[in-house]
């Protein structure tokens, strides 16, 4: 009976990459509805995500919506900087 060699597990391989060429714009997702306009907000001194959420949604506890929409630039929800531009998703 042949002794079959177990296959290695590559499940934990980490990968990445980058290019000197600019990234291609993402293809627009086909949709029947008109895309919602993207709102942005520029952080000013004294702002917090909950203050901004209250300003846009009327409820400070909706700050997570903003945090989730800006995970690429906001790593810590307690740390935003004046001048930072945040995407404000629809509530």
């Amino acid at each position: 009976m042949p002794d079959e060699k177990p296959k290695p597990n590559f499940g934990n391989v980490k990968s990445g990459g980058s290019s000197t060429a600019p990234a291609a714009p993402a293809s627009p997702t086909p949709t029947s509805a008109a895309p919602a306009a993207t709102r942005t907000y520029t952080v000013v001194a004294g702002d917090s995500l909950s203050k901004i959420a209250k300003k846009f949604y009327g409820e400070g506890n909706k700050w997570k919506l903003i945090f989730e929409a800006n995970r690429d630039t906001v790593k810590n929800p307690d740390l935003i900087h004046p001048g930072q531009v945040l995407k404000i998703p629809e509530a």
Partner: protein
Amino acid sequence: MFPHSLRIGSFVTVLTIGVALTCLSGCKRSEDAPAAPAPPAAPQAQAFHVIRVDVGNAIGADKKVTAPSASFKPTDTIYASVLSEGASAKVDLSARWTFEDGQVVNEATQSIAPTGPAVTEFHISKPDGWPAGKYKLEVAANGKPAGTAEFTVTN
């Protein structure tokens, strides 16, 4: 008599100077206005194509593999640099890494919009080390084979 000769002499002098000035200014004009060079040929947009795929265990700031190699240690991060030329509004550049009999190690795609020569790097690492054996990298541009590289990992 004398005044008449003087007038003729003056006239000849003035005429000579005038001719000389005309010649000089004419010559200068021709120096200032050289023949118009032929207009350069309109640059032709070069279609995107991959020139070369290199693998190594490090890349430089230009994203090129610093020392291409075909042999790696289990602890190495393996980098692949894809050198390309040409422009395209969008190219899906993919890297498919396989082990020995074709077992897929990793697949990744980058969408780029090159405007000329470009270097795109892919890298893979395995925290618990690469199994020894033969590996292959296949690079494709928009799904079409564009280059390959083979390497081994030895303990």
